[in-house]
Each structure stands twice: as structure tokens, then as C-alpha cells.
């Protein structure tokens, strides 16, 4: 990363210093609650999915969807606010920092945030003994790629809109359906054939399948390169879009 991008990352971390305790706590508590209620509670009725206990089956899904939701959440109000309310994007742009630096520093920050949450999550679930395979150590890597593939386009979206009411659309029509139907809680094979491609479109599904393959130590439904490649394409396209959106907003 070029130095101005590091400076941008530092600024976001300086702000994060003020709230990291709360955020680590919540990234610790949330998975515990999840595992307790859905994994053990619902799992008690469901029994096994795909030959493994439901709780083991659902852990990688929850992990990926945590990364996904954090990436979406971080990149909405915070990004719009830097243009519209605090005007920090404009302040940065008056310096040596360029648009690509700004985006690189921001995405690095989001990935770091996601990594902290994911590592805490892994530590918690490992303590419950629900990670079936040593390949689970690769899940933070998958989470990082998933976070990038989501954070980049959402950042671009947030930089393109004028009013925060658009976020309601994003949450209702993209984030919640993705979380519900991308193979986090049940296999996408349960979905009618016609609807299934919608799950395949979501980056979350690819992240979930890669994580699940890692924690269960099995092969994912598509080749690893296809899942990963799909996420890379999303990330690259998202960054390109973000560059256009930032530049349009910052200069006239």
C-alpha cells in the first residue's frame, strides 16, 4: 500500500480506538448467543444436515454471514457521512491523498475489523469443539475475501447516493435476503430450482460454501477457484465502481 493509504487506514483506526472494547465484546457475545439458540436449540430438532450435526454445519455459515453483515454495515452510514456530514472525504482530498488511496485505506480498515470479529468468533466456537477440521484456519482468509467483495461495492453505492433512505433498500432487498437464502441456515438445495440462482449470485453463498468446506474438511460444491474467483470479480468491480463514485463526488 502506498503511504497515503496507510495514513487513511491509521485515521480510521484512531477512530476505532474509541469503540474497540464494545465491538470486541459484541463480536464475542453474538456468536455465543447464535450458537446457543440456533445451533443447540434448533439443532436439537433438526439433528443432522449433510451427515454432520446441525451446529457444526451452521458454524461456518454464521461466521461468513457475520463477515458479510459487518462489511455491509460498516460501509453504509460511515461512508455516506464522510461525504455528506463530516466531509472528511473532502478534507482528505485536499491533501496528497488520492481517491485510490482513500478507498484502499478504507477497505483495509473494514477487512481488519472483520478479521478481529472472525478470529474472536473462531476462538469461541473452537472452545465449544464444533470445528471439525484443521482447514478451519483458512476461514479468516475466506472472510477477508468475502468482506472485500461486499465492502467494495457497498462503499461505492454509499458514495453514489444522496440520501440515507436508500440504505433501507439495501438492507431489505440485498442484505436480509442474502443472509436468509445464501446457505447460512439451510442448504440452498432446499430452494426451488428457479430461485436457486439468486443464491449463487450473492457473494455470501460463495463465502459460506468456502468456509463450510474448510471447517468440515470437505470439498465445496464448485471448485475452490470458481468460488474465490467470483468473490475476486465482485471486489475488483466494486473497487472500480467506488473509484468512479468517489471521484464524481469529490471533484466537479
Amino acid at each position, binding site marked *: 500500500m502506498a503511504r497515503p493509504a496507510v495514513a487513511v487506514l491509521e485515521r480510521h483506526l484512531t477512530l476505532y480506538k474509541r469503540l474497540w472494547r464494545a465491538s470486541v465484546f459484541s463480536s464475542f457475545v453474538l456468536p455465543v448467543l447464535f450458537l446457543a439458540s440456533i445451533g443447540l436449540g434448533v439443532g436439537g430438532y433438526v439433528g443432522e444436515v449433510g451427515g454432520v450435526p446441525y451446529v457444526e454445519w451452521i458454524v461456518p455459515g454464521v461466521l461468513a454471514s457475520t463477515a458479510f453483515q459487518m462489511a455491509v454495515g460498516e460501509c453504509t452510514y460511515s461512508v455516506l457521512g464522510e461525504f455528506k456530514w463530516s466531509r472528511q472525504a473532502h478534507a482528505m482530498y485536499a491533501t*496528497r491523498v488520492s481517491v485510490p488511496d482513500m478507498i484502499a485505506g478504507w477497505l483495509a480498515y473494514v477487512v481488519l475489523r472483520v478479521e478481529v470479529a472472525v478470529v474472536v468468533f473462531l476462538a469461541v466456537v473452537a472452545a465449544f469443539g464444533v470445528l471439525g477440521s484443521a482447514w478451519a484456519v483458512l476461514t479468516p482468509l475466506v472472510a477477508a475475501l468475502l468482506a472485500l467483495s461486499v465492502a467494495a461495492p457497498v462503499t461505492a453505492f454509499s458514495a453514489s447516493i444522496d440520501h440515507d433512505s436508500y440504505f433501507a433498500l439495501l438492507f431489505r432487498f440485498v442484505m436480509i435476503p442474502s443472509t436468509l437464502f445464501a446457505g447460512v441456515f439451510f442448504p440452498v438445495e432446499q430452494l426451488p430450482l428457479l430461485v436457486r440462482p439468486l443464491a449463487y449470485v450473492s457473494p455470501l453463498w460463495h463465502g459460506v460454501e468456502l468456509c463450510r468446506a474448510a471447517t468440515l474438511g470437505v470439498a465445496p460444491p464448485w471448485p475452490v477457484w470458481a468460488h474465490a474467483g467470483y468473490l475476486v470479480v465482485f471486489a475488483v468491480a466494486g473497487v472500480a465502481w467506488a473509484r468512479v463514485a468517489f471521484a464524481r463526488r469529490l471533484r466537479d
Partner: protein
Amino acid sequence: MIHARGLVKRFGDFTAVAGIDLDVAPGEAFGFLGPNGAGKSSTMRMISCVSMPSAGELRILGMDPVRQGPAIRARLGVCPQLDNLDPDLTVRENLTTYARYFGLSRAQARERAEELLDFAQLREKAGSRVEPLSGGMKRRLTIARAMVNDPDLVLLDEPTTGLDPQARHLLWERLFRLKQRGVTLVLTTHYMDEAEQLCDRLVVMDGGRIVAEGSPRSLIERYSSAEVVELRFGDRVLREVVPELEGVADRVDVLPDRILVYAKDGDGALSEVHRRGLAPSSVLVRRSSLEDVFLHLTGRTLVD
């Protein structure tokens, strides 16, 4: 430092800057004076490389703002019209963070922040968040932040708008220090006293064009008389007085509450007024100011 020829900025059908020529030399304090909507801020935004010229030639520090934006911005200090300090950071963090954007090392950034805390007289507030600071403090911090990279050229867009008189004077004093250190200052203002205090040279803009250019003194000499006599006539309808003032001065201006008589010799004009048997209820003879030039050039119609 700045070189512009036929510079134009259009927004759709609207022409904000309609072809201006400019040259600002190193060490100069240069001002853009004009009513709201005259094109001052649009020009400033082009100079600070965040707005692309629609036509014409523009060179900043010898570079092309379209292709070398970041390289130019690295050597500029920008104090925008609206403060854009980081509200969630402390005063000191605002300075160090900004220093890092310009590529200073962490140690350099800390050192620079300490110097600037003194410059902006904000040492006691160093650990405070920006939010609760007064308007004057925020402005001083914004200017200090603009100095963090030791810029060759400092751009100030209406630096003292909205501040109380004490805060303005303190700010002027700080800006004057920068000027003494040889920093090139470019500012926009619609305060005449500010322009007279700070600027070696200025241009008056109106409707996107430059309507006059020169030092404050030379503008007064060219566009106004040396002195102005302000006459008030109690309840009399002022328009009726004007014919009686025929020939007393070069020019007469009627304001709602008083008549301005522009003359080389104010006292001489005043005795002529008295000799004609006119009895003003109050009289003020004063030196002509930049405000007289400004109102003469840009008219008295309110611009919003």
C-alpha cells in the same frame, strides 16, 4: 504560483467563472473580492485542484491541475469555507492525522502538531474533541491544519465569515504572521476591512468576471475619490436634495438614510454644501475605503 488565462467554469448552462486572467507571485497576499455568486469560490476550487476548468489555461506551482492534482495538493494548504475538521478526533489528532495524509512520519507529525497548537493558540484544548470548540477556535484549527505540510501556497475561502470581532482580529494577526514568513496567501472575502488589512493586491469579481484589479490603495484612487462626505438630512426626501448638490463633487450616491458625496477634498466640498444654504442634520468626512470601490463596481443590489 498561479497562472490563469481565460479560465472558465461552467455548471450545465450556468457560467460561474466567465474567463478570467490571473497571476499570483510568490510571497504575495492576493484577494478575491466580490458579492455572493461572483465566482470567487468556484475559482478557488479550481485553484485547489478539486474542480476542473471548463476552458482556459491554469497552472498551479507550474503544474497542470488536471493531470498533477495530488502533486499540487501536496504543496497547498486549503482552508475551505465550511470547516471540515474531523469531529470525532481531538484537536491534536486532527493535526497529526492530517500531517500523516501529507506523508510526514509519526514523529514529525507529533512535532508539527505541537508547533501548530501554539500557532493556533489551542494548547489548552489539545486533548478536547473538536465538536464543542467555538467558531473562532475551529477556524484557527482549520488554518493550523492547512499549515501542517508547510505549504508554498495557502488558500483561504472566506476565512473569517461568521466570527466575532475578537476572533477575526486574532485570525488576521495569525494570517499576517504567515505573510511575514513569506507564505503566499490567496483568499476570498466579502469583507472590505479584511481585504485592506491582508491583501497586497486584489481583484474584484462580479458575475464571473474580474471587474477591477490592483492594490487596495490604487483601487481606491482609481474607482473612488480620496474622501467621502456622508450627509444626513433628517426627514427630508434625499432625492430632492440631489439637484442642489450639482457640481459640488465628482459623484453623488443616494443611500436610503444618507447621501455620499465623493470629493478630492472633503472639507472643501462640505463648505460648498453649507455655502449653498443646505443644512444637513449630521455630517461625516472620511477617507474613501475599499467598500466605496466595491459598492461602486458591483452595485448596491442585494445578491443572494
